[in-house]
């Protein structure tokens, strides 16, 4: 029998992996994948808690909603990346740097 702790550790690892991907990868699509990992870590937590401690279906419902909304968010995110690619012909995160402080004289 897998314990609750095991699930929580896996989800924490997923969260940290997602954050590390967010920080270290230069490809915008890879960063979107990192966001998916973070969302999935939360969904895993909900289902695990639902099974082991709380004994109600709230967690399952919540994780279903997370999956649906993550899909919507990925669709919009990819559409924006495509628009960016059409203009700049690259999806490198370092190119996302035109908006910055401009100090007045």
């Amino acid at each position, binding site marked *: 029998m897998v314990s609750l702790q095991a699930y929580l550790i896996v989800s924490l690892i997923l969260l940290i992996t997602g954050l590390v991907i967010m920080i270290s990868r230069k490809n*915008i699509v890879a960063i979107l994948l990192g966001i998916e990992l973070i969302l999935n870590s939360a969904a895993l937590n909900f289902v695990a808690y639902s099974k082991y401690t709380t004994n109600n279906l709230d967690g399952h419902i919540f994780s279903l909603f997370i999956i649906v909304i993550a899909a919507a968010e990925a669709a919009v995110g990819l559409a924006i990346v495509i628009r960016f690619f059409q203009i700049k012909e690259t999806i490198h995160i370092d190119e996302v740097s035109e908006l910055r402080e401009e100090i007045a004289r």
Partner: protein
Amino acid sequence: MTTNLLANLSFYIPEMIVIVTMMSLLFMETAYANNERRRTFVYVTGVIGMLLCLFSLFKNLGVEAQGIFANAVVVDSFSTMMKITMVIGTLGTFYISHKSIDIYDELKSEYLIMAVGVLIGGMLLASSNNMLTLYLGVETLSILSYVMTSLKRRDNLSSEAAIKYALYGGVTAGIMLFGMSHLYGMFGSIQFGPIIEGIKGLESFNVAAVISLLLFFVGIGYKIACFPFHMWSPDVYQGSPVPVTAFFSIVPKIAGIAVVARVTYSFFGTETVNTHIWNSLIALIAALTMTVGNLSALNQKSVKRMLAFSSIGHVGLILMGVLTFGNNGMSAILFYTLIYTFMTLVAFFVTTMVVNRTGSDDAVYFRGLMKTHPILGMSFLIALFSLAGLPPFGGFVAKFNIISSAVGNGLYTLSIVAAINSVISLVYYLKLARSMVFDTADSEETIESYSLASRVYVIGMVIPIIFLGLFWNNIYHLYSSAKLYLN
């Protein structure tokens, strides 16, 4: 149970009207896709829908505070008043979008659809009483906002701003969900009621609960752009088309403030072990948000960016009101958001006009606006004075109420910080005002799109600023009678 849920629908009419409006706008967009005249129809539909929604919201004001749909959503006068402000803000940005050349003609109806969609999310967020509805509200708000940001299709700044917004938004939503999942594990429910009971029942300082609540706050803090999570805001404001920027500084902010106030007051309104940690945290965030926002606004070239930082400063002030929510704070917040909406609408309408003429929102293009367009210049001057908090305008009364409620609750340090920040904010508002009044304009040509209707609009938006600054008693009484539903 089923009949109960159906009966609850009668309290949910304003939201349903907004949803129906969005659907009919979508159908009109597809039906009249290649028709020039369709834009008028679309605007008329949008305005009628918003006015109907406003009407039914006013009818909802008298409803007793209660939870509906199995306590997932609440109806109380606090959230209804917040929603009224949001709908007024949306209506105001409709006209700005109609006038702006920043939104291409073929996309104007899409702006309306998105704006109404964001409004649905904001209304859900303002009355959420459950972590699931809160998350749904935040995401409805966010996902449509990403699309709105990239509405200016062929512009690289717009799509860049959208990428920044989407990436920040995605990661903060994920972190918020992580915090929510641990709250659910600890207290056994996603309803606010049991969580509040659980927090009250904690015997000692609980690290896990505090960390989960902090992670939970990340998502909301990102939406209102308070201090550690404000970095996206100036970039997104600068990159978006002007009407979208105006919309972002009104609707998502007010919805976020409503939810911060609800969470702070219903979770930590009564004295518990963990109360003072949360409250001192909010106080620290409020002070830092004000200071960082106002100091960064000092030397901005882009007026949109300056207004972004100034709105961060205003959020800091409103967070002060959140701290004193139970004791005069609620009416102060409600009043502040109403005034803030009108001031923001005027400021962004004038910015739209200047951008229409020059294609840029650089502060140098505001020079001599007073001489070339007296009404526009005068309105902008009043809006700037009111934003800076000078009497006799509404902004002064709003700021005064917030600070006096903070002093009344013994938050002296925070009040001093707020007063110092008011002085700092004077610098950049008056700098813009000075160059508008005293400098000579680069060109004498008038703004083409500045019509009679524009004059009526801008004067109509300025009147509440002056009027609420002089005769604020009645509306303040109405706001003091607002009730928050407590689980």
